[in-house]
């Protein structure tokens, strides 16, 4: 059963017209570039800035996009599963939608979706977010769907909401991944992977979270993310960094944060859409 989480959607994205693109995004550009985390077209690239390139010698203003015709929207999708607290991270959805709309011209749905892992509906959503605190146990159908989802080209991000490698979620998630994809399927993602330069540049790999820096959870600063690869493409990304907690704040709070912590979410989305 697919469910909208509109009640969680706040901020700019909520004001976007349905089918984003019916109104020209260029009209929103002034507000965007005035934002402290938005990058102006004429701004020189800097560390932590988007890794997009303008052809040398070309007028960067000409490289700007014309208003796109109506296109299929990107929809932030959370996974519902049978055993565990899948609903624990829904507070971040509105923030991520706001972030995508803020930094990109991607047509993004103003509401997120929730789809059961054991249903066929998950195949309508090539990008899904998976999180939880509690022990995880997939049903046989969920396991089959997960394997098929990855093989068909879907991109799933599993985030340990406990940020604790001794926690139940981490242990059981690794067991389920091993059971589904094989013992050694989960590989370390190198910190120079394109995932970290796809839009914003993260020179030192995955950005640290305040939970890690404060010593909560396992009191470790996790240097790497892990992934299940299909060829060179990451199909399943596993994080022990608890981005779910890090990104769960009110969109208005962004005004008081020096560096937007959700920028890495844009990289995840852009990677899913282009790789």
């Amino acid at each position, binding site marked *: 059963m697919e469910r909208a989480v509109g009640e969680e959607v706040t901020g700019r994205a909520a004001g976007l017209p349905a089918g984003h693109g019916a109104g020209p995004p260029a009209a929103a550009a002034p507000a965007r570039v005035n934002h402290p985390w938005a990058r102006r077209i004429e701004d020189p690239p800097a560390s932590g800035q988007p890794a997009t390139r303008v052809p040398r010698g070309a007028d960067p203003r000409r490289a700007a996009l014309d208003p796109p015709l109506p296109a299929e929207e990107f929809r932030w999708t959370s996974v519902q599963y049978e055993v565990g607290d899948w609903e624990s991270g829904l507070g971040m959805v509105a923030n991520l939608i706001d972030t995508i709309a803020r930094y*990109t011209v991607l047509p993004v749905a103003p509401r997120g979706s929730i789809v059961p892992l054991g249903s066929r509906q998950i195949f309508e959503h090539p990008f899904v977010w998976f999180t939880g605190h509690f022990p995880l146990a997939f049903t046989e159908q969920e396991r089959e769907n997960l394997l098929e989802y990855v093989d068909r080209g879907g991109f799933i991000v599993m985030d340990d909401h406990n940020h604790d490698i001794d926690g139940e979620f981490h242990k059981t998630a690794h067991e389920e991944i091993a059971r589904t994809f094989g013992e050694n399927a989960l590989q370390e993602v190198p910190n120079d992977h394109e995932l970290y330069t*796809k839009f914003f540049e993260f020179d030192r790999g995955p950005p640290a979270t305040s939970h890690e820096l404060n010593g909560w959870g396992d009191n470790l600063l996790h240097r790497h993310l892990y992934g299940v690869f299909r060829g060179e493409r990451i199909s399943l990304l596993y994080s022990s960094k608890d981005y779910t907690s890090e990104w769960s704040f009110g969109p208005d709070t962004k005004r008081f944060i020096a560096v937007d912590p959700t920028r890495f979410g844009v990289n995840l989305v852009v990677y899913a859409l282009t790789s």
Partner: protein
Amino acid sequence: MPSPPDPPARPPSREAPGATGTTSSGAPPRDDPTPPGANPPGSSADRDLEAAIRLRHRLRLLFERSTRAAALALIVLLIGHAIYSLRERPSLRADGTAVEEALARWSTSESPRRIHAALDSIPPPHLRDWIAAFPGAGTEASWDGGTPAPSAVSVEPVADPQKPSKVWVAARPGARVGLRDELGALDSTTAQGFGTVFVLPRLEGRVLASIDGQGLATDLQDSVSVRSALVVAMAGWEGKFIVAALEERGWQVDARFAVAPSGDVEQGAGRVRLDTASYSFVVAVDSVIKRYADQLPRYVRQQGGGLIVVGEASSVPALAPLLPARWGIPSRPTDFRPETADDPRRAFALGDLYNLKDGAVVLETREDDVAVAGWRVGDGRVIQIGYQGTWRWRMAGLAEDAVEAHRLWWSALASGVAYAPRFDRRIAGQVEPTPLASLVDRIGAPAPRELELAGILDDPRLLPLLFGVLVGLLMLEWVSRRLRGAG
């Protein structure tokens, strides 16, 4: 030679008129030579017998004269034909397996005016050349026979990184078609319509086709060279899965995914310059293609590049002159249900293609709507897709082979438009792709049998028969004369 015995009775007319009182030996005649009880001379029975003997004698003479005349006429005919043949060469024919032997005879000991070969199968190339050489020597040549139905085999490379080949086989409906190369059997099927088409991943050496037992052979005449593909789209699922399908097929794909006003997510070459030295074809997924609109007409029309336009990219005004049709408003959201598992394209949102231009070819329809169309624009080819998106086919299609089906569908479209210059390959040996057509081309169309021979005496089988008849007639005439005692 001994003298023949006297006939049993001589007609009285042969006796001298005044010799009724004496015999020829001078002995006095008997007064009454008739024995008692016998018919007296001059009776009606004697006269009947005498008449019968005379009639038989006349008939025999007539028979002898007739056989003599027939033999004489036959001799005259044969001598005349011989004289005629000395001046006019004969027309000769040979049937079936005797053709090769006859060709040797006709080329050496005989010098016919005209030859005709009744063939029971397609002769090998050397016999064809042999027959074709006769006109050069002043002998007309013709043929007919129960040859197989026209058939042909042709193989051509497909513009695809995996370098498959497409084998076209022309055959009558229902013919059993088998295909093999030098490594072994490849495929077989029953021809439908006017033939069948095989798409084979890789061929080794010569392609040999068997059509109802008749052998045909051909070879790949040339090979193709493909360049990269360019996909231009807003970052999204359609562009992502098109790139995935093409890359899985083996295409080197450059992509430009628009993400932000300041630039794109780029894959492949840093700067896009549309020319056929770099790209075999371009896939336009949405309106982002506008930024290359000034380069596309030259790329397609003059350089022969390919262009695939998907869904809403058709709405870009600058592309309109390159498109084979206009794009309608998408009518239906994508919705996969079990009933669309067999053909997921029935579930796509479709903006039908209408107002097809002259020269446009419909490649795919859904119900009454045109879903895919293509046409040639200058030296290039353009395919326009009315479906708004196809990625769900791969991601959410109900069939187990949805990923492969999506990949193959896109591969076929790419092969249909891709710029792929051909290079001639050196062919070793001679191939036989169209034996019947080659035969007709070499020695002409088959001529009806009744028009072949100039005269009945041209048939060499007739001469021994006529000679036998002649000898028979002469023997009969001789025997007849001997039996009646004539010399």
